[in-house]
């Protein structure tokens, strides 16, 4: 396959970037999208040009490091991560636009790499449980009803890639934050911080400059892990409950 690419190039955080055009030849349909970019980068290196910077780590769709907006879709046309997107989703001669996540809270560091530490600060605000150290407790000591375990696991699948923010027309981080809040708030281990968790994480999310939610639903469509849209309502319910319980 021979492809035309238009890629966002930006030297550093302070520079103004632009879309640059490239051509890549010899692309196999079995390549992942990142392998296609690797091929292009090898060519760029041979030509003595600066390779395109992009985030990646496991390349197995489980770490959440990669994140590209491909033809306007976070992670591209398939419901998976960019590393698990294969070139068979495209046709010979296609022009593909590749851009970084666009959000005020995710500033571009270089090319397609953005700074997602705003997510880390949301986690620091309450995305943990206070567990006593020592030997692992007996497995049956804390029973968890099966529906709760399923609900928690569904939300624990979030890999924090930021596709929800990138896809949201408002650059809102509601789906990410709700996944983290719901994952821990439903479990007995998460009960001690149940109220402060949702209040602090939402307050941090707002302070980081993410947009407000208008329930457009683009986040849940883009999420490679299928975090469902009703998660947002579940977090709102927790937030309203916490405000009733906690006097600040």
């Amino acid at each position, binding site marked *: 396959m021979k492809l035309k690419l*238009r890629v*966002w190039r930006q030297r550093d955080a302070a520079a103004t970037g632009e*879309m640059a055009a490239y051509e890549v030849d010899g692309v196999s349909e079995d390549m992942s999208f990142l392998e296609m970019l690797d091929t292009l980068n090898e060519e760029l290196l041979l030509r003595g040009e600066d390779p395109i910077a992009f985030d990646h780590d496991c390349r197995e769709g489980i770490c959440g490091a990669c994140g590209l*907006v491909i*033809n*306007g*879709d976070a992670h591209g046309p398939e419901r998976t991560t960019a590393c698990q997107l294969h070139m068979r989703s495209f046709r010979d001669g296609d022009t593909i*636009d590749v*851009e970084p996540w*666009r*959000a*005020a*809270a995710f500033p571009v560091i270089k090319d397609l790499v953005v700074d997602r530490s705003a997510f880390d600060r949301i986690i620091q605000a309450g995305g943990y449980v206070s567990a006593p150290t020592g030997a692992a407790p007996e497995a049956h000591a804390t029973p968890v009803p099966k529906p709760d375990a399923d609900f928690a696991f569904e939300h624990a699948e979030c890999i924090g890639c930021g596709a929800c923010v990138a*896809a949201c*027309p*408002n*650059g*809102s981080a509601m789906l990410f934050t709700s996944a983290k809040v719901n994952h821990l708030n439903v479990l007995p281990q998460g009960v001690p911080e149940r109220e402060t968790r949702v209040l602090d994480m939402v307050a941090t999310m707002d302070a980081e*400059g*993410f*947009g*407000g939610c*208008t*329930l*457009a*639903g*683009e986040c849940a469509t883009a999420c490679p892990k299928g975090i*469902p*849209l*009703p998660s*947002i*309502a*579940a977090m*709102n*319910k*927790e*937030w*309203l*409950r916490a405000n009733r319980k906690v006097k600040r």
Partner: protein
Amino acid sequence: MAVSGLLMLGYLVAHVMGNLKVFFGPREFNEYGHWLRTMGAPVLHEEWALWIVRLVLLATVAAHAVSAYQLSRRDIKARPVAYAHKRRRASYATRTMRWGGVIIALFIVWHILDLTTLTVNENAQPGHPYENVVATFSTWYGNVVYITAMLAVGLHVRHGFWSAAQTLGAGSASRDRALKAVASGLALVLTAGFIAVPVAVMTGVVS
């Protein structure tokens, strides 16, 4: 947004039921119009109940508009650089919430000038709402303005009701289909109910 929106939605349901009384003839419709002024009597003085409703509505419209402005400002600020590859995001009802809201706000101004203060009404007879309604829908612009606004109301309610449920924490995976069905049902019934009146005047059912 959610609380003020639901209050206004409740008002719209009462409003459409009142409007449909037009099909029972001028006497019943005008009596209903008169009752709105004496509502709450003899506990309340004439028009007091009406003014309480008007003030509550004014407060909800203001609260809705202010929160919409704040939310929009925040959302625009959260994406300072737009994507170069444009594509449509979200459903038509969702995308038109902002401009639809502006259209509805402008319509409310027109609607009050037309049928409350009678400033722009062709008939403009105080105490004869039936005749005034017929006069409005006998003009082409009266119909165009009204029907456009009611379609906007339908779209607004369709996304708004469901969203309000999510904001207030009433949404869940098992309840999602039911909430969406209620939202679409409300939108359809309201729009059809409101549009029924101009259509009836145009076709001569109400004259």
